[in-house]
C-alpha cells in the first residue's frame, strides 16, 4: 500500500477494499506515550471516530464512507476522497477562495446542527473534493450541542488560518461565516461568534478588541 500522508497520530495509506479505492487509517503507537495510556487513547479514538463519521454522514455532511473498523488494530478503512486539502488549496488558489470557504462554513454548520463538534478543524482536515468540501479526521470529535464547544471548533479554524494562512485569513473567515450562518441561522451564528470572542479573551495575556 502506498503511504498517502504521515500525520501526527495516524498514517494514511492508499489501497483497495472490495474493489474500491480506499484509505487505510492506522493509528500508530506513539512511543513517547506510556503504553497503557497510548493503547487506551488509540482504541477509544478509533471507535469514536467511526461512530461520529457514521453520524455525520446521516446528518448530510460530506464525509468518507466507512468500509471497515478495527479498534484492536486501531484501523479504519474508508472511502478515498479525491482532491487537495484546504491547506494546499489556500496556498495555491490566490484569491478565489470565496465559494470553497462558504461551502466549508456550511459543512461545519451542518455538523454542529447535528450535535457534533469536530475538534480538529485545521485546514489539513478539509478536502476540496469534486462534489464539494469534505470533512475528514474525526479523531477528536465529540457529541455536543454546547455553544462553547462549537465556538472552540471555530476558534481552531481561525487559529489555523491566522497561524498558517495569514494573508487570506480574514476573507476565508468571512465567507466561512456566511456559509455557516446559512445553515445554523443568523441568530445562532451570532451566538457562536460571540462565544468565540469570549474564548479568545480568556486566552492568556489576551486583549481582544
Amino acid at each position: 500500500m502506498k503511504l498517502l500522508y504521515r500525520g501526527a497520530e495516524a498514517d494514511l495509506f492508499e489501497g483497495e477494499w472490495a474493489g474500491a479505492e480506499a484509505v487505510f487509517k492506522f493509528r500508530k503507537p506513539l512511543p513517547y506515550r506510556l503504553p497503557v495510556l497510548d493503547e487506551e487513547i488509540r482504541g477509544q479514538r478509533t471507535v469514536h471516530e467511526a461512530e461520529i463519521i457514521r453520524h455525520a454522514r446521516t446528518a448530510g455532511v460530506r464525509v468518507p464512507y466507512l468500509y471497515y473498523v478495527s479498534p484492536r488494530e486501531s484501523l479504519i478503512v474508508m472511502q478515498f476522497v479525491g482532491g487537495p486539502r484546504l491547506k494546499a488549496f489556500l496556498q495555491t488558489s490566490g484569491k478565489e477562495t470565496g465559494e470553497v470557504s462558504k461551502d466549508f462554513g456550511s459543512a461545519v454548520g451542518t455538523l454542529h446542527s447535528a450535535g457534533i463538534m469536530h475538534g480538529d478543524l485545521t485546514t489539513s482536515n478539509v478536502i476540496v473534493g469534486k462534489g464539494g468540501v469534505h470533512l475528514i479526521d474525526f479523531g477528536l470529535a465529540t457529541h455536543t450541542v454546547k455553544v462553547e464547544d462549537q465556538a472552540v471548533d471555530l476558534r481552531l479554524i481561525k487559529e489555523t488560518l491566522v497561524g498558517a494562512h495569514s494573508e487570506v485569513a480574514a476573507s476565508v473567515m468571512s465567507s466561512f461565516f456566511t456559509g455557516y450562518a446559512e445553515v445554523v441561522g443568523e441568530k445562532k451564528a451570532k451566538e457562536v461568534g460571540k462565544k468565540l470572542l469570549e474564548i479568545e479573551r480568556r486566552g492568556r495575556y489576551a486583549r481582544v478588541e
Partner: protein
Amino acid sequence: MKEDLRVLGIESTAHTFSASVVSEKKGLLCDVRDIYAPPEGSGIHPTEASIHHAAVASKVAQEAVTTSGVGWKDIDAVAYAMGPGLGPCLRVGAVTARTLSLSLGRPLVPVNHAVGHIELGCMLTGAVSPLVLLISGGHTMVVSYSSGMWRVLGETLDLTLGQLLDQLGRHVGFASPCGRRIEEAASRSHRYLRLPYTVKGNDVSFSGTITAAKRLIDAGEPFDDVCFSVQETAFATAVEVTERALAFTGNSELMVVGGVAANKRLAEMLGVMVGRHSAKFHVVPLRYSGDCGAQIAWTGLLAYKSGSSIPVEKSVIRQSWRLDTVPLPWRIAA
C-alpha cells in the same frame, strides 16, 4: 560606527531578578540572577517578590556589569522586560532600567519576555526559524514564525504546564517553583494512575488533570505515583499537540524553551517524537531555559539594531502582552 554593540538587559517578570550584558560580537558576557524564594507551601506573592527585587536590583545590575568585563560607559542600550508578567515585579525592572538609561544617557529598549525566551534559544542552539514549544509558569504555547510574527498554533486553554506542576506541589506543601521536586518524585514511580487527558483540537487543558490529581492525593495515593501520572499525562498532551503542529507546518526544526523545558522526561518524550519526523531538535541549555537577563539583553540587542527604543516617559509595563501581537523587525529584515 562602533565596532561592537553592548546591551544590558533587565529581567523581572516573575520570581527572577536578573541582569545580563551581551555583545554583538561575543554573545553573552554574563548573566547574574537573584531569585525570590517563597516560603514552603506558597506561590509567588507578587508584592513580596517585588520587594525582593527592589532590594537586590542595584547589586545585581552592578555585578552584571562588573563580571561582564566592560564598563558602564561601554553599555550602548538598556533593555527591560516590558511584559507579560506580574505587575509589581515588572515595575521594579522597569524602574531599574529607566534609571540606568537616564543616568548613562543610553536608549531604553522594551522587550517581550516570551520573545526573549525564543530569541535567546535560537542564538544559543543555532535554530533559525523553528517551531517553538514555549513552556513555563507563564506560557504553554506552540508557535511558529510567519509574516512578521510568532503565530500561535496551539496553547493551553487554562493552566500552563508550570502552573500545573506548581499547584500540584503546593498541594503537598512545596514552594513554587515545584518542577524539580515533582520530577524527582515522578522518577521514583512507574505506577500509572489514569488522569484526564485533554486535547481539544490543537490546544491542551490541564484544569481537569489538576483537580483529579489533587483528589488522588487526598484519597491517599502515594505522591510519587501521582507526580509520575501527572507528568506522563500532561506532557503527552503537550507533545501530541506539538507533533500535530510539526506535521502541519512541516518545519525542519523544533525548539523547546521556558522553565519547564528543564524537565528531562519531557525532553525525552519530545526527542522520541521528533525522531519520527525529519526535524532537528533543539533544547536550550539548562541554565538558560528559565527566566534570565540574557533573554532580555540579547533580544534587546536585536531590537536596538533594528531601530527599536522607547522614550522613558512612554516606557510603561504590560502585564498582559500576547506573544502573537509583538512585531519582530529584526526577523522581517533577515
